[in-house]
């Protein structure tokens, strides 16, 4: 058992982070906004934690104190909450602006001294002895986020978001301020991404411009598009399963008698496979695999 934990501790924690990052993309999507900004706030959160823990916080003893970690997360969340007031942009234009945002941050990170330039920041202190212990932070964060979204989908504010997603003009005419709620859902998504970034800096031990790129935004989007875009359970399951997918593919590549090209494809063709899954998923499962109708069928006595 402890062998399993040692080998897969990293993967398990990554899967939990994947779920939360899926939720970070899901939040703006609740209001019908396609935002690809999650990796940007993830990178930002990570840099805040990395810089603070390596250059600002002084600590004694072996392990980085968890309260400091929580403080870093708080700061990362606050900074992410400042967000970008780009929500006068609609649809595809917002998506493009968020792609640009991620790129700008990446280039800044590569060139600024404080972020360590191309090398990045390394030797980020560890608050835990083993990787699996990061669950102490990751799991509560996921559970709180899930509770938050479970409630959000059932209250007035959540309905306002759904209305905007269904028909923004009609929602406006029914008294809902679209910009206010679009900014709100965007900010909540940004905060989640920033929080995960802050912990991930410690989790991965180093942080550089390769954390939080456009590639990542496609992967997180896949969590939502494939997992389910109409209920919070979708991105959670999508994040967990699809984070484990590359590992599973690698394992499949190792099976006995596969032709070399297939084995190589399974091992390295991760992004192609994700892209294919998005395309196939959108055609056969437009609302993702986990849909509200599916949930209703699984729970016959609901509300």
């Amino acid at each position, binding site marked *: 058992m402890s062998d399993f934990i040692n080998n897969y501790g990293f993967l398990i924690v990554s899967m939990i982070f994947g779920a939360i990052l899926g939720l970070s993309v899901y939040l703006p999507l609740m209001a019908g906004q396609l935002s690809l900004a999650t990796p940007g706030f993830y990178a930002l959160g990570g840099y805040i934690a990395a810089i603070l823990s390596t250059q600002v916080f002084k600590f004694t003893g072996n392990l980085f104190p968890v309260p400091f970690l929580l403080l870093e997360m708080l700061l990362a969340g606050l900074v992410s909450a400042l967000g970008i007031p780009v929500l006068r942009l609609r649809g595809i234009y917002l998506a493009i602006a968020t792609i640009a945002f991620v790129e700008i941050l990446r280039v800044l990170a590569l060139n600024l001294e404080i972020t360590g330039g191309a090398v990045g920041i390394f030797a980020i202190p560890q608050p835990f002895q083993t990787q699996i212990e990061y669950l102490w932070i990751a799991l509560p964060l996921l559970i709180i986020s899930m509770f938050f979204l479970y409630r*959000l989908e059932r209250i*007035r504010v959540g309905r306002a978001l759904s209305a905007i997603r269904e028909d923004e003009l009609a929602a406006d*005419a*029914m*008294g809902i301020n679209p910009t206010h709620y679009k900014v709100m859902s965007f900010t909540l998504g940004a905060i989640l991404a920033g929080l995960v970034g802050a912990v991930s800096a410690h989790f991965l031990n180093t942080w550089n411009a390769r954390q939080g790129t456009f590639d990542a935004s496609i992967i997180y989007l896949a969590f939502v598009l494939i997992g389910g875009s109409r209920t919070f359970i979708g991105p959670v399951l999508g994040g967990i399963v699809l984070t484990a997918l590359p590992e599973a593919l690698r394992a499949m590549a190792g099976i006995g008698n596969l032709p070399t090209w297939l084995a190589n494809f399974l091992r390295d063709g991760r992004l192609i496979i994700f892209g294919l899954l998005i395309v196939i998923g959108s055609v056969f499962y437009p609302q993702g695999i986990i849909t509200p109708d599916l949930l209703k069928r699984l729970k016959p006595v609901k509300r």
Partner: protein
Amino acid sequence: MTDEPKVGKTIKPILEVRKMTRRFGGLVAVNKVSFTVQKNEIFGLIGPNGAGKTTLFNLITGLMPSSEGQLIYEGEEITKLRPYQIAAKGIARTFQNLRLFGNLSALENVAIAHHIHNKTGLIKGILGLPPAVAEEQKTFAQALELLELVGLAERSQEKACNFAYGDQRRLEIARALALKPKLLLLDEPAAGMNPNEKGALSELIRQIRDTFNLTVLLIEHHVPLVMGLCDRIAVLDFGQLIALGEPEAVKNDPAVIEAYLGDE
């Protein structure tokens, strides 16, 4: 053509449209249209296709900015307000081409329009404190009542997109009523309905006006319905107001006969 209220009624304007104009480049869709809607009237807006009726509705509800002119609602200028602000003032509308929240249930559609009357913000809502829960229950109870009013209560959990066309029209009316408006704008509410349904709709509109003590401004193509239902009628043609008055006067107005009447 005079802008006086129906014979026997005192003047109590609720909406004043003053020289409303909307240009799309060289095309003047609405041309200096002026009229006043009195409280508790059922005011009809008719005219041939493309006369600018729906454009005028869009101007009144803020979905479109005007090129010129003013809108005075209950003595207050609302010309530059955004749609959600106009809704908050008490003006609700339905849409010519139906704009329901298709994937949501009928009950949710109506409950959503109750948004501005609730005060529960994000945090209080998430925490589910007693006042928030009470507000939710009240919202859904009132939404169900409105569905009962339009005869759709048994299907409250069904998705709005699955309703028949005529039922969707009535659902939109229920949704607009959830806003608790003082002025209700109906854009071709009878479109696609058979004669029986049209009759029932006419009754419903009168009932709504009386029960909720509101003013109704409606666009309609079906002339007999308009003649039978409205206290006063305005006629638009090519964006201009060509007649205004009580149904009998309008029906016999030569300008109207020339432009439009005889459609049905």
